[in-house]
C-alpha cells in the first residue's frame, strides 16, 4: 500500500514537472533607443517586439522588425531604414540567449529578481555576444522584464558617413521593456 502511494506521488510529481515547462511570451514588447549627442537626440520606439521566455530552462528569444521602429521625424526614420540598418536587406534583429543565474529567480514566487543574461544579438546581419542584466518582476498574472543594453553601431557594421558623424552617438542606449504573459495552447 505504502509503495503504491509512493509510486502515485512520484508519478504526480513527474507530471507536475513535465507540465510546468512554462513558456511566457509577448508580441507587443517595447524597445526604444536613444542616440544622444550635443547636436541632436535621436529617439525611436518599437512596440511590436516578439519575445519568448522559457522559465524552466531560462531560454530567452527576441525578434524585432527594423521597420517597426517609429521616429517622430519621418526623414530620420527613412535614413535609419535605408542608409544605416538597410532594413530591406536585413528586416529583423534577433537575440537568442539565456538567463545564467536561474537558481536566483523563483518564478513560482512573486517578487523582484535580477537576472544575468548572455546571448547572441544579431543586428544588420552581424552577430555579437552580448551580456546584460535585467530586472524581472514576477507578478500574479504576468512577468515584467526591464533591461538596458549599450550598442556600438560600428560593432554591427553600421557605417555612419563623416558628414553626420557628430549627429549620431558612438554608443546607443537601448531600453527593453517586456510584459510576458503565460503562453497557453
Amino acid at each position, binding site marked *: 500500500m505504502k509503495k503504491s502511494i509512493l509510486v502515485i506521488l512520484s508519478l504526480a510529481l513527474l507530471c507536475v514537472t513535465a507540465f510546468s515547462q512554462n513558456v511566457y511570451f509577448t508580441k*507587443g514588447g517595447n524597445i526604444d533607443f536613444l542616440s544622444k549627442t550635443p547636436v541632436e537626440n535621436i529617439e525611436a520606439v518599437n*512596440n*511590436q517586439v516578439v519575445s519568448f521566455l522559457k522559465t524552466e530552462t531560462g531560454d530567452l528569444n527576441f525578434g524585432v*522588425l527594423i521597420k517597426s521602429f517609429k521616429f517622430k521625424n519621418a526623414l530620420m*526614420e527613412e535614413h535609419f531604414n535605408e542608409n544605416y540598418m538597410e532594413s530591406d536587406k536585413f528586416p529583423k534583429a534577433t537575440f537568442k540567449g539565456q538567463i545564467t543565474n536561474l537558481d536566483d529567480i523563483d518564478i513560482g514566487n512573486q517578487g523582484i529578481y535580477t537576472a544575468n543574461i548572455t546571448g547572441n544579438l544579431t543586428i544588420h546581419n552581424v552577430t555579437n555576444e552580448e551580456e546584460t542584466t535585467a530586472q524581472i518582476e514576477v507578478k500574479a498574472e504576468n512577468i515584467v522584464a526591464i533591461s538596458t543594453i549599450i550598442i556600438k553601431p560600428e560593432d554591427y557594421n553600421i557605417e555612419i558617413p563623416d558628414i553626420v558623424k557628430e549627429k549620431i552617438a558612438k554608443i546607443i542606449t537601448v531600453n527593453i521593456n517586456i510584459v510576458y504573459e503565460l503562453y497557453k495552447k
Partner: protein
Amino acid sequence: MKKILILAIIVTVSGLIAYLFVFHKPHKNTFKLKAEYIISASELLTEFETDENNANSKYLGKIIQVEGEIIKIKNISGNYEISFIDELFGVTCIVDSVYAVQQRDELIQLKVGNNIKIKGQCNGYLSDVKLDRCIISD
C-alpha cells in the same frame, strides 16, 4: 535694388520651404496611398511561411491590403492590434493611435468573427506577419 530684394525673398522662402519639406516632411499617410497588393491574410501568411526571403522582397515596406476574419482585437494604449488566423502565429495589423482616432467609429464596431479589409505597411515576419500604419479600408 528692388530686384535684389525680391530675389533675396524668393531664395529665403524657397529655402525655408525646401527645409520644411526635407527635414520635417510628414509621415506617409496610409489613407492617401494605394495598395500595391491585395491579398487574403491566409495567403499572405502562407507566402511568408514557405519562402520568407521571397515574400520579403515582394512585400517589405509596401502598402498592402489584407482581408480576413478577425480573431482578436486589442487596444494597447490607443493603438489597435487586430489579429487574423492566430494571435501569435498569424497576421497582425496595427492601427496606430493617429489613425485610430480618425477611425474611432469603425473600430468600435469591430467584433471578433467580422470579415474586414485592412490596408497598411508590411514590416516583415517574426512569429507573425506584421503590418502597421494600418487603416480599415472596408
